[in-house]
């Protein structure tokens, strides 16, 4: 399955690119040690990339997400003549790069403090999420349901930046697919695109636990995709630190033939109960419904208000009352 001649060609171009990268690096860095560290890293990256290009059967790192879409730069760039350098990104100057990477991964890892859920029923898909995002002791409110395109939604759990960036990137790819093929992409295809990208970055510290929900030609679909590379097709999912609480309420109240109002209420109730028990979830419950015409936002209620709506304060009888002592 491998062609010897093609291998030699690829090797030749690979060494050409590496040499030009080195020349560029040498001219860029005056500080010797930083330059050397950069060169070493680039070399090792190039090495693995070369080997990856040679053995084309092994998974290649999918850097298409990092491509800048404004590739029509003026010729006469001082880079490599007609060939552009392989896509790469700037590295921070640090003494211990490996330690820095490990720390960065650990910082994002436990971050899936949220509750999101989605389920399929006879009239489409309900997608619901809380809005709490916390960084240390500081709490703020984030929009966790991302509108990929008018008929597909994605939920956010894990690193907010990772989710937002890769969902936006997925939206771009879906639109490109539409333009190239004159038909909308299926939810299966969109989720597979995202899963493949996330798989190629596994072990590098991305933290994404998302659900892709949409309505395509085959009807409503729901996929769970995470940054470990897993992709599951299903009818009910909940993701995040509050998900076990939400699952309980959701599984118990679920029937396939719910009406839209009942289903919206079920989603809202499940998120509310999760926010009640889970400290990392809270804020505002958003519920969306995806139907054959596309998605529509149904509710956005504060969980504090919801609590008193579901459990109104009952004035309790007082057994003993303290009264002011009258006179001495």
């Amino acid at each position, binding site marked *: 399955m491998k062609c010897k001649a093609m291998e030699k060609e690829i090797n030749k171009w690979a060494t050409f690119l590496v040499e030009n990268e080195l020349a560029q690096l040498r001219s860029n860095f005056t500080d010797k040690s930083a330059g050397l560290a950069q060169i070493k890293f680039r070399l090792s990256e190039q090495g693995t990339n070369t080997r990856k290009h040679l053995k084309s*059967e092994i998974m290649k790192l999918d850097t298409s997400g990092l491509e800048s879409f404004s590739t029509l730069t003026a010729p006469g760039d001082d880079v490599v003549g007609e060939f552009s350098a392989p896509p790469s990104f700037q590295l921070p100057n640090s003494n211990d790069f490996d330690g820095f990477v490990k720390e960065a991964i650990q910082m994002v890892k436990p971050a899936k403090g949220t509750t999101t859920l989605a389920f399929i029923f006879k009239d489409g898909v309900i997608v619901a999420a809380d809005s709490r995002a916390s960084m240390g002791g500081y709490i703020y409110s984030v929009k966790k349901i991302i509108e990929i395109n008018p008929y597909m939604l994605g939920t956010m759990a894990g690193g907010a930046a990772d989710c937002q960036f890769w969902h936006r990137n997925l939206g771009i790819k879906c639109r490109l697919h539409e333009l190239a093929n004159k038909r909308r992409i299926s939810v299966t295809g969109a989720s597979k695109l995202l899963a493949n990208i996330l798989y190629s970055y596994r072990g590098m510290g991305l933290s994404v636990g998302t659900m892709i929900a949409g309505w395509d030609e085959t009807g409503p679909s729901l996929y769970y995709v995470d940054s470990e*590379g*897993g992709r599951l097709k299903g009818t009910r999912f909940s993701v995040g630190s509050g*998900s076990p609480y939400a699952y309980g309420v959701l*599984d118990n109240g679920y029937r*396939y033939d719910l009406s839209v109002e009942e289903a919206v209420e079920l989603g809202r109730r499940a998120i509310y109960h999760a926010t009640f028990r889970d400290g990392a979830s809270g804020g505002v419950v958003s519920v969306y419904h995806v139907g054959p015409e596309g998605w529509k936002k149904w509710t956005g209620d504060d969980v504090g208000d919801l609590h008193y709506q579901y459990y109104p304060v009952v004035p309790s009888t007082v057994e003993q009352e303290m009264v002011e002592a009258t006179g001495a």
Partner: protein
Amino acid sequence: MECVFGLVGNGFAIVVADTSAVHSILVHKSNEDKIMVLDSHKLIAASGEPGDRVQFTEYIQKNVALYQFRNGIPLTTAAAANFTRGELATALRKNPYFVNVLLAGYDKETGPSLYYIDYIATMHKVDKGAFGYGSYFSLSMMDRHYHSGMSVEEAIDLVDKCIMEIRSRLVVAPPNFVIKIVDKDGARQYAWRESVKDAPVPSA
């Protein structure tokens, strides 16, 4: 937690896998099919990290199909198993796949065969094999009751014995299992063994 096991009988090979997709303490779904049909007469049952499992088995499936398109004849089971092992071995020192694989197939010339392929690219041709926590229970059951040339009924009986043992003795036993068989008529699903059914969804 993931239980995969299989055995070779008289003119057929059977593989059984659990069907739960688990994330720490949460069961995301209980009907995830982990036995992929590689081609008309091969099955690949995989267990391990979820992303790796799907990506690796799909990769093997597409390469096996490519060979058939290019050369007009399908790969033998031994060739497919060696190819799978080779891919695991090549990736091992760079970007290892954490997938354990049981590859079952039927060839006209050599009959049924079962290959045990570890995540560190160990390969053995076996009559019976198992992966996961379930292997602690199913291997000894199979050692006790297996004999070469079992009929389908005897083999399914043995499989059910193993499943019952796993269910009663494993602390986090998976509720549902899928059984697939490959013989001269091809690779196909044989049965499900379910103890937890999901809410019924009327089919479109």
